[in-house]
């Protein structure tokens, strides 16, 4: 007989949101400023012992770490970034994209996620607290790489585009120097969903939606944002 995926979903992406900042309450400001959140986090050493870089999107522990890291950086619900049944599977595209370009820094970030997510009901805050941030002058080279890669990952999820972390680090880099990762990534960019809208030229909302008040952010990003937040 059928399982009830409807009920199963409730345990994976609970609709309820927590009330306080410690347990991960998301405000419009924090959602939109994932990169800023990383900047406010505590700085810790991330220089790992020298070894071959090897993370793999097909390894469940690596993919889980990437999703946890992404949830922490973006503030978007895990059930939205990585649905239980995920036909789009953009997370795999993103994982491979980053791993091909910045394997060492990426492995460092995933290590932070693995080391700080275990056993936590909401691993976002412990992970964020360990992602390198702050003034570059106070960071080691590896920490600087991880810091800017974290920003690239935030931008990747929100805009479906790749902002090279090395260029992000250059203060005079053009803010428009980016590459849309793929047509699929364009349709999956979260920035407009946070705004309860859709990417230009692509919408799966019901015909005539523009005449009505949009649904709550809960249905767009999996977490509610109080008006005015």
């Amino acid at each position, binding site marked *: 007989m*059928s399982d009830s995926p409807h009920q199963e979903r409730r345990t994976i992406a609970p609709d309820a949101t927590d009330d306080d900042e410690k347990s991960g309450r998301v405000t419009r400001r924090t959602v939109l400023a994932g990169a800023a959140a990383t900047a406010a986090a505590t700085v810790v050493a991330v220089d790992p012992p020298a070894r071959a870089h090897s993370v793999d999107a097909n390894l469940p522990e690596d993919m889980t770490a990437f999703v946890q890291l992404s949830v922490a950086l973006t503030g978007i619900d895990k059930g939205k970034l990585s649905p239980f049944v995920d036909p789009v599977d953009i997370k795999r595209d993103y994982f491979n994209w980053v791993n091909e370009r910045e394997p060492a820094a990426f492995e460092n970030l995933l290590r932070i996620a693995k080391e700080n997510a275990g056993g936590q009901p909401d691993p976002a805050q412990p992970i964020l607290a360990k992602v390198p941030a702050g003034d570059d002058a106070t960071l080691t080279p590896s920490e600087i790489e991880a810091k800017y890669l974290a920003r690239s990952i935030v931008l990747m999820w929100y805009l479906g585009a790749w902002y090279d972390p090395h260029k992000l680090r250059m203060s005079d880099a053009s803010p428009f120097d980016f590459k849309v990762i793929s047509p699929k990534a364009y349709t999956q960019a979260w920035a407009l969903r946070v705004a309860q809208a859709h990417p230009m030229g692509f919408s799966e909302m019901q015909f005539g939606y523009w005449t009505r008040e949009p649904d709550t952010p809960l*249905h767009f990003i999996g977490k509610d944002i109080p008006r005015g937040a």
Partner: protein
Amino acid sequence: MTKNLLLVTGIMTALGVAGLLSLPNLSEAQTPVTPMKPAARPLAPPCNTMSDLKPLPPDARPDTPRELTPIDQTTKDKILNSGLPCQENVNTTGPDRNKTPLENIQRGFDFYSWLTFIALNSPADGRGIEKSAPNTKTKWEDMSNFRQLLDVMLPGGRAPKWEDEKIIPAGCRSQYKSGMMVIEMIEETFNQPFKTGPLIDQRASYALFDILMNKQTFDYIERHGLYSKPVQMSEDRSKLKIDFPAGESREIMLQLFPELSSKDDPGSIILKVSWKILDPKDDKGKFHTVDALVSMPRHDPQSEPPCLRKTLGLVGFHVMHKTKSRPQWIWTSFEHVDNVPEQKDVEARNLKASYNFFDPSCDTAKCKVNETPPRPWEPKHALGLKFYNKEFKSQITRVIPLTDDTKEMNKKFQDILGKTVWKNYMLLSTQWPSDFGCTRRFSDSPEPSTDFKKEPDMTCAPVPTFLANSTLETYSQGSEPLASSSCMACHGNAVSYQQRPPNLNPDDFFNQSDFTFMLEKAR
């Protein structure tokens, strides 16, 4: 499935209306001549509740390993005579621990699709499908089970009745014999979705398309007057939230939603089929065939449109089925195994001797792949159903290959279909809505029992994201968002002729036609 032929708002207003205007005046030119005969056995209920997994014993522990339902000679008789599923029966688990929940559910939907295909294509007279000859009339070809769209959307917005006799165009009456299929050659009969062009087979004939609905779908249209364009546009209908009846099986509903009352009812089913005109060189024994009359477009106002008698071979078969647990409908697509090669087979030169819509001997420089025919596309009166350019034949390949899992299931079902023609058909895939958050809220919502009105994604994350039949969405295969065929993404845009009166709050207006473009054919 689709960028369904029946079409798309903007294009319809310009071209579709012209097509409608060119239709013969059926009220004058046609008379009913065929008495209806009830099928010996209704499609459902009883509902088929078989699953791709063996049922667990009542006292089984929750962690009991699951086993696949065998599809072989030991279960052949049971499967081939199990009837029509009223609702899908799918699971997130399975015997193979390496399979993802998505793959397990997909296998369940594909199993459901094969059961549906077998039930609909079983003989209308109640025998099992294993008794079929190539030309045996199927359940869906029997007017007591399904009606063609143009028998519902009558001239002048006249009200149809399910009991109505078959309407035969005047030009066809002299040739008509009981049991014949009658197809009217309107633009949607030969032109592909979004009017992207006709499909021309290797004998230089047009492929033909047709749409049918079951009684539950018909009854909803009839009850709300949706066969009439003026009624759709009336103020009285402006608040109607179109919601076709959903299929349900009491046994499955008790598992999924025990708090709800339930019944056995197949709900709405819509079919779209494609036909190849068979000529003497074709092997008729490889197709399901019908003896058909094709009523051609009127070319001379002084005479009746010509009517051509043809043997048609089934080459494509779409099923839309709305269920309580999948209000975005379930989208099943089958086609003939000899239609086209997969693109990768072309590249590897791993080809059959011939295909219905591909010439293995033709150089790709000469026969460009997946290109639309040269214009004009409309059939020429003097040429009947042959394309005017004798040099052109469609050179079609399948862009997205079938998955290995679907191929494996196809092999099993084809094996138990034995020597019937039905072994020559294959499931391409089943598209289903995967975002359970979208589909679970229906029980709490007011009519139409869904939250489509405000869903950020009313298609609820279709799996697979793209699905195209090589004969029905020939020119929109691929995986580009918006540009490539996705059943739900396309049909989610379907609307009716409903209009919002000036005094009606926009929030109370919901012009969404429940994933079907059929209502745009109202007259």
